[in-house]
């Protein structure tokens, strides 16, 4: 029973991070139709930059997060101006090819740069994790990892913030309108470039901060980025684009499945779980388990 609860907590906190990753991912796909293959790589970069700030430079964790947000804000603006904007005006097929190829290229070059630079300049052992002390929290007889609870708290706060943003603010409503119909969005006189800038900035900063929280509990390797994009994609396909509650459930399901696989079959098989889950979902119900699916 105790073991089961521990598995659920670590699975849900892991899954919560996946859900967050997936949600930022689907927010940008559903509105701009741009698939950012580099998404997971940005997450890994977020973790790496956080470790550099908080450990190698010895800054306070909160200050590190603030600096991290500034760095990724600048990156997000460059990303939107340099890659997203030139693609937005293209026809559907060109947009598809262009967005996949450009972000795939960006992701691979960022990934290899990080891998190379980390080994050369930071640490010959290319795995980074945060060594911030997190004490186990005991609830009755159950001992829970403190860092996992922090992650869980972060996920809940961010998801609530995203939810309020989409439901209550004008920009959130505009984003939902853009996802419904791009042409309709133009017809009512809204500016798609401004919105795509805001959405990509939000998504990229949220992703980078998620990476920073992730390394509190799980070490990352510079080459984990693309597999993480695939995990985010798995959650998106499971949940349906833009469906926030379902994304949370799907993320948790994937997290628990991975943690149990590591526990019972060995960690080497954990990466296969999300891939197999995705394949099975595609075979059984290609429109996703929850929600209406994509198009």
């Amino acid at each position, binding site marked *: 029973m105790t073991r089961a609860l521990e598995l659920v907590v670590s699975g849900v906190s892991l899954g919560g991070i996946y859900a967050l990753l997936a949600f930022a991912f689907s927010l940008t796909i559903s509105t701009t139709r741009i698939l950012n293959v580099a998404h997971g790589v940005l997450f890994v970069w977020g973790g790496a930059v956080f470790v550099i700030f908080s450990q190698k430079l010895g800054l306070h964790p909160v200050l590190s997060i603030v600096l991290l947000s500034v760095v990724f804000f600048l990156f997000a603006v460059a990303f939107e101006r340099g890659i997203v904007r030139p693609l937005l005006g293209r026809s559907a097929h060109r947009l*598809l090819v262009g967005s996949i190829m450009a972000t*795939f290229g960006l992701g*691979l070059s960022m990934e*290899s740069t990080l891998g190379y630079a980390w080994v050369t300049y930071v640490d010959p052992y290319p795995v980074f994790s945060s060594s911030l002390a997190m004490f186990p929290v005991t609830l009755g007889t159950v001992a829970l990892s403190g860092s996992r609870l922090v992650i869980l708290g972060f996920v809940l706060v961010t998801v609530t913030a995203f939810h309020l943003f989409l439901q209550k603010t004008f920009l959130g409503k505009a984003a939902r309108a853009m996802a419904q119909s791009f042409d309709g969005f133009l017809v009512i006189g809204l500016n798609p470039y401004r919105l795509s800038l805001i959405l990509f900035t939000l998504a990229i900063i949220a992703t980078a901060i998620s990476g920073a929280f992730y390394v509190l509990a799980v070490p990352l390797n510079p080459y984990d980025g693309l597999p993480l994009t695939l995990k985010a994609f798995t959650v998106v396909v499971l949940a349906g684009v833009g469906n926030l509650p379902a994304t949370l459930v799907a993320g948790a399901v994937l997290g628990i499945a991975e943690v149990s696989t590591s526990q019972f079959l060995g960690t080497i098989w954990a*990466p296969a779980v999300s891939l197999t889950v995705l*394949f099975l979902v595609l075979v059984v119900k290609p429109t996703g388990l929850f929600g209406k699916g994509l198009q």
Partner: protein
Amino acid sequence: MIALIGVLVLALLPLVLSSTFVLVMFLSFVWLVLTANYDVLDGFLGQINLGQGAFFGLGAYVVTILLNVGTVQTLGRFAVVLATLVALAVTALFAAVMAFPLFRLRGFYFAIGTLILIFLLQVFALNLTALTGGAYGAYVPPAFFMNALVGYYLALGLAVLSLALNYYLARSTLGLAFRCIKGDEDAARSLGLDPMKYKITALVIASVPSAAAGVLFALNSGFIDPGIALGVERSLLPSLMALLGGTGVVLGPVFGTAIVRIIETVVFHYLRLPVPSMLFFGITLLVVALFIPEGLLKSPRITRVKLFGKLASY
């Protein structure tokens, strides 16, 4: 005519090349096969297959595993033929089976689905250590090593065959059906074309030469591991080269492959720049996707030159 002269020149090249360059050319032909096969789906069907390397890796692994089986080894020279045929059949079957779940997806969902395929095979190659040797890789028994020159001509032949396949697609009713589905899938269905049938056909015919390239690679190098046979660049480079050369043009893959391989050889073998190769390829892909999305052989600036215009019309 131009094509004939090109092939003839390539066939005579080993007479003057050093053994290093025979190997460089061999690898270029292998890449050309993958690129041409990638273009079957991208250029003709409008589907982005980021898992082209999966077929290459599968072919390489099946042939290596089979040649390490005792009973197969007793067949002597015939063993290679048998192992190759089995590897091609397994890959074709794999492509046909995988086509069903994959083509339930459209657009970028298909692209990501195929990327998942190669990662999944990687996980299996890494973890089924008894069969594949895991991260340490697998060796082809030395008795079955392929002579470098034989490898060169077989790879050249395979590349010509792959281009001939694309040439056929550019002119046949089968290719016309592909292009029709690329243009508008629903309209194609209303004409009585079954998109699923054509997509499966395309994936299978695009998988077999790639698997054969994997077989040649394994027999030529004698060693494969998950990074070499199923690494991300096996999938990235074909799409980069096809995109650079121009998709849907028969000679596009030749252009793309030649340019990337020449730059790669100069940058990494002569200058030995201390840059990770994926950084270089990644940035190239980014630049190509943003600035020459139509590819060189379809860009009006290039085809205005008479020679290139003629090459593009093949």
